[in-house]
């Protein structure tokens, strides 16, 4: 892969964005007053987003190449460099992370009362780590950021979490760490098999023997599948989501679990195309199982957050399904669905956090008739319910439609099975809404409706739901060249148009 520097901005903008939160975290060390901590934290996260805005203006949407590259030697004797850059895929996740970080600070304004300073430090450190993952073009750097995410999230869950927070935190940590270690082994093997480089772009352009590809694929798969999480590696997610504080759930659902799918796109597909082709069918099956299984399990949930957590399993099944369809619609739908899921599920967790602050319960059975008690809250909630169901006009529809289109094009049976997810999704979400907001009105219960700060928190997400729903090209335009390139390379490497043609002769067309 050619790697011409395309830095249109003459200062290291990516480094500034990535490390600004970390610098902010250091700054917080010297602030005592809790309120000042909140304002500083809000200022830093907002400044991060503002600092990133020039990227939109000068981003080149016609190329798949890495842009805004920065490369410095770091440990030359081992070929380790500080090498970062973004393309049309990662740029979107940068913005999602920046946005959700601001919202996480806002939603924690009142709900976090203890150890305020430490909480915001953890939040900011995590922001840096997440951004770092999305910009890294050097494996060493990547792995540092990847593992660095775990620590603040572990702390967030373990300290500010719910009743079973310790169990959930440890489970989350061990689960993801176990996956990551296997990836580390994979990275080391890559290092020795390549020309002793950790440059991700260079490693992506090499071809490896088939058997090696398969082993490496599996090593990376361990890390990514846990993160996504794919069925059957998902059981950490409900615990972690449920016990995490609202901000933690938002970051977890919004961006953290996207890294697995991002890893598939950035590493697995370009580096191990033959192995991807070999394992595509099992992954397709796991994805469809996740979609249906995740949705079915939602029907049995009694806890608001757990229900949304399991719905994430189902939605992320759509994401992996789209990506491994390995056609333009599937992959673009998959990427869009990742962003959508970040927006929708992020919003749902935000909203559940808001109502939890008032009622201190997450049990669905404790609610009822809330459409009368908190009408504005109910009105906003239903927007995200329908976005989650994938109603046309919302962002959820565009993602799901492109994925099913891609999946159906790749393999009809799985396209059909995946589409059943849209029936089940409508079922559990509307049932949830009915139990919380409609039936069982409790006389005399007074809960105050959503306030100004909360509306401000949700407003960007509401706008995004409809913006993407009616004008998805705003986002799709960024990713076209990168996705086209990914698929072209993959097809060139594997000499095949349809990824599943070797399994079943399911071809469209004439006699």
């Amino acid at each position, binding site marked *: 892969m050619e790697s011409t520097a395309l830095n249109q901005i003459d200062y290291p903008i990516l480094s500034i964005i990535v490390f600004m939160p970390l610098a902010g975290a250091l700054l917080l060390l010297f602030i005592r007053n809790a309120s000042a901590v909140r304002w500083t934290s809000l200022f830093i996260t907002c400044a991060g987003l503002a600092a990133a805005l020039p990227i939109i203006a000068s981003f080149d949407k016609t190329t798949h190449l890495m842009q805004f590259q920065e490369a410095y030697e770091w440990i030359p004797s081992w070929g380790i460099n500080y090498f970062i850059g973004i393309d049309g895929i990662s740029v979107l996740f940068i913005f999602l992370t920046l946005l959700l970080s601001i919202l996480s600070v806002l939603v924690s304004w009142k709900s976090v009362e203890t150890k305020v300073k430490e909480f915001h430090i953890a939040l900011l450190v995590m922001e840096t780590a997440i951004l770092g993952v999305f910009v890294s073009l050097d494996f060493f750097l990547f792995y540092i950021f990847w593992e660095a995410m775990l620590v603040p999230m572990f702390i967030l869950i373990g300290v500010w979490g719910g009743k079973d927070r310790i169990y959930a935190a440890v489970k989350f940590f061990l689960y993801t760490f176990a996956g990551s270690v296997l990836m580390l082994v994979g990275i080391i093997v890559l290092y020795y098999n390549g020309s002793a480089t950790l440059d991700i772009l260079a490693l992506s352009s090499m071809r490896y023997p088939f058997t090696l590809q398969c082993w490496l694929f599996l090593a990376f798969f361990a890390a990514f599948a846990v993160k996504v999480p794919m069925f059957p590696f998902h059981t950490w997610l409900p615990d972690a989501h449920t016990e995490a504080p609202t901000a933690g759930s938002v970051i977890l659902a919004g961006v953290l679990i996207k890294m697995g799918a991002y890893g598939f796109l950035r590493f697995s597909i370009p580096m191990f195309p033959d192995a991807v082709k070999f394992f595509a069918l099992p992954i397709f099956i796991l994805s469809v199982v996740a979609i249906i299984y995740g949705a079915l399990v939602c029907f*049995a949930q009694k806890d608001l957050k757990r229900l949304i957590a399991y719905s994430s399993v189902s939605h992320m099944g759509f994401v992996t399904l789209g990506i491994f369809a390995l056609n333009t619609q599937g992959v673009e739908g998959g990427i869009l669905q990742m962003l959508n899921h970040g927006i929708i599920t992020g919003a749902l967790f935000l909203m559940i956090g808001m109502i939890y602050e008032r009622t201190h319960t997450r049990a669905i059975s404790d609610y009822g008739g809330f459409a009368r008690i908190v009408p504005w809250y109910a009105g906003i909630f239903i927007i995200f319910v329908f976005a989650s169901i994938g109603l046309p006009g919302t962002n959820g529809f565009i993602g799901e439609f492109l994925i099913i*289109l891609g999946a159906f094009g790749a393999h009809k049976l799985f396209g059909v099975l995946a589409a059943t997810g849209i029936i089940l999704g409508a079922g559990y979400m509307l049932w949830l809404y009915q139990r919380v907001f*409609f039936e069982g009105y409790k006389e005399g219960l007074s809960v105050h409706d959503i306030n100004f700060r909360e509306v401000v928190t949700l407003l960007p997400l509401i706008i995004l739901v409809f913006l993407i729903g009616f004008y998805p090209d705003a986002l799709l335009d960024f990713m076209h060249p990168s996705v086209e390139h990914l698929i072209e390379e993959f097809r060139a490497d594997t000499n095949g148009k349809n990824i599943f043609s070797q399994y079943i002769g399911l071809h469209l*067309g004439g006699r």
Partner: protein
Amino acid sequence: MKYALIPLLPLIAFMINILFGRRYIKDKAHWVSVPAVIGSFILAVSAFMDVKAGNVINIDIYNWIASGSFKVAIGFLIDPLTAVMLIVVTSISSLIFIYSIGYMHGDGGYYRFYAYLSLFVFSMLILVMANNFLLLYFGWEAVGLCSYFLIGFWFHKKSAADAGKKAFIVNRFGDFGFGLGVILIFLTFGSLEYTHVFGHASVIAGKTINFFGYDVGTITLICLLLFCGAVGKSAQLPLHVWLPDAMEGPTPVSALIHAATMVTAGVFMVARCNPLFDLSPVAMNTVAVVGGVTAIFAATIALVQNDIKRVIAYSTISQLGYMFLALGVGAYSAGIFHLYTHAYFKALLFLASGSVIHALHHAGHHDEQNMQKMGGLKKHMPTTYIVFILATLSITGIPLFSGFFSKDEILYRAFLGGGLGKFLWFLAALAALMTAFYSWRLIYLTFHGKFRGSDEHEHHIHESPKVITIPLWLLAFGAVFAGYVGIPPIFYEHGDRIGEFLAPVLGHPLGHGTHAEEIFVIAVSILVALAGWFIAYTMYLKKTELPQKLEARFQPLHKLLFNKYYIDELYSKTLVQPMLRASDKIFLGFFDGRIIEGVVNGVPSFIASFSRGLRRIQTGVFSSYALVMAIGALCIIAAMVFWK
């Protein structure tokens, strides 16, 4: 382009009402929505004139989604078919919006009602104006959303909330097929635009697709998948179960959405796709059979129901069946013709029954929809009674009323459709007999005889206010005269003006019958209409003890019909309950809880026991460490010596 305002005006009304209604507009919400929808109506008339002058408008507003070779735009097509639908939708909407000023007066959610209703009109207009399948799908789902909101309008009632949810989910089953159909269209044609797809339909004809190991005609598969959506939206067997429950919504909603417009979307869609359906006899026969069977199936249920709105709801299902029967035998314009006349007389039936419910409700009657608790209302509500009679004359197909023209056209076309057609004609004629019976039964139970509630209530029953009766009169005008745009050529040579108008889109139906055949069909339909009327007259006006006797005599049959063939119970027992149980016990409890979590929690405990063993070698006793070290050193030395 000004016609983009047709859907946009109601959308703007929706936004204003939903954002500012609660705090500022409140009970003045109709001042926002009514002018908007009347504006749409005026523009629709102008669009209709434009089309009548020979123009077809097909324009892309902007590019909606682009991904690789997949491209689809937000764009509108206004051709004769759309023009007719625009008139139907906007005219009936306008009347119902005005009617609701009176009907919904004083409801706490007044602004919400007008907001949702405006959103519905927007969605329905998008549905009929779309120029591609994805925008059609957008409108399709959006009307479903509004239907969900409006059925569950009184959401604090569990039955209403349940009904809304049921409507949405049952429709999702149909949309599952519809969505796949849209995807298959794209994969087959490389485009979702109507003009492209229909223009290339003949190229694809005869091609097959391998589906689960079977070779199926591609066009047939596409048509059947699309028809799944129509079955859901237009409440045909076996997805009809949501429509009767949808009567939980306010009556204007039942009239507009669940009688006149939304439920006919399936009919519109199949008619729109006629170039595809024409190529697939299998799909056409499926449409015809589903329509014919549904027509009689729903009519049998309507015979014994007591809830005034449910009778009309089953009647709607039955009439929609007629429309599909027409489409299935290739008489597309007859189907659309019936859609158009039905919109007026059925909206009138609902609104008039709403007038009855409104009056009884305000009289303090608690069982306000139960016909067994009504009776003798004609002297209290003369206007409502008269328009009810007019609508009934129309739906039962009495000559010179509009329902006669459209229904007769369908029966005639079915009769000409070969062996299957004859059979379906027989079903439809039988259903017409039942239609006449249950429609007149409704009239006699409601308006004739003696009032079967308390005197106290009877004393307070009054005719509805003008804001309700004026729209009734206007609809009654439509219910009587709408049919005169399609007079059979046997009576008047250039009478079938709607057929001619639609011909550029829908073509002419195949086959010509003899005069004798045509007269035979007309005679039979008049005969059954009168027969049904006579039976109802005998049973409910003359020998009023007869219904109870018959009920006792045929008790199992009556129970079966009264309980709607137990289909709801069947779905609940075989689909819903097992799924809920499985999700709790098998998936969550056993699979997630035992198997996966068993492994996950098993590994740490295994490691723990392993490390307990490992701990034994770290005892802290210096001498044993020294011993191990010595042995280790020996081994290394030995290895280094012997390896080389």
